[in-house]
């Protein structure tokens, strides 16, 4: 079982991909997914508590992810 996580900008560059499949058993907490990502090649780019969006909404680390959720890591935004 794995969870696809969307990556953008500097995070996508660091992981070398715009989508990484994280091997986790769902449901699980956002912070568990982050911990696994930080252990992958390129994962050192991530701060301990990066911004995460689930289904296009910012969420906190204790939020639970279920199958079918769209999960994305959000680098520091720089629009405008």
């Amino acid at each position, binding site marked *: 079982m794995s969870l696809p996580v*969307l990556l*953008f*900008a*500097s995070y996508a*560059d660091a992981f070398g991909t*715009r989508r990484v499949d994280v091997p986790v058993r769902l449901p699980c907490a956002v912070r568990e997914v982050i911990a696994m990502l930080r252990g992958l090649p390129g994962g050192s780019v991530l701060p301990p508590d990066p911004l995460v*969006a689930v289904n*296009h*909404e*910012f969420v906190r680390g204790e939020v639970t992810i279920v199958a079918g959720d769209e999960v*994305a890591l*959000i*680098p*520091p*935004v*720089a*629009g*405008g």
Partner: protein
Amino acid sequence: MADAAISAGIAPTVGGVVRHVAIVDRPIDVARLSSLVEDDGVGAISLFLGTVRNFHDGRDVAGIDYEAYQPMAERELRSIVREIGDATPGLRLAVEHRVGTLVVGDVSVAIAAGHARRAPALAATQLVIEALKQRVPIWKREHYLDGERRWVDPTA
């Protein structure tokens, strides 16, 4: 997805209030955006344009790649426009942000606000740009004249 940014549809009026947002991958039509907030009851229109400038942090800039998490960026923009619009009866707001590769002088973001009076129109453009820079998932990678490219991190 981010690279396939497409213009969102126009939601011309919500309870008589214009609230248009879009992430676009072509030049922003500023005149059209401004016309969206025009109305016979509007006495003041405030427009804000962000443009690509030729230097940043002491380095010469040739251009900028803008990338967005498109559906979330439009959702956040809609949320910003709704919050500000709900707080100001009669406010008409239209916002577009461009993605892709822009060169110096290109308009990256345009915000138009129309209101019967000038103070709410002026305040609205400022509130939108500040909120956009805080919470809309858009990123930019600057191209420097020396050939280097770097993602900008305003929190660094």
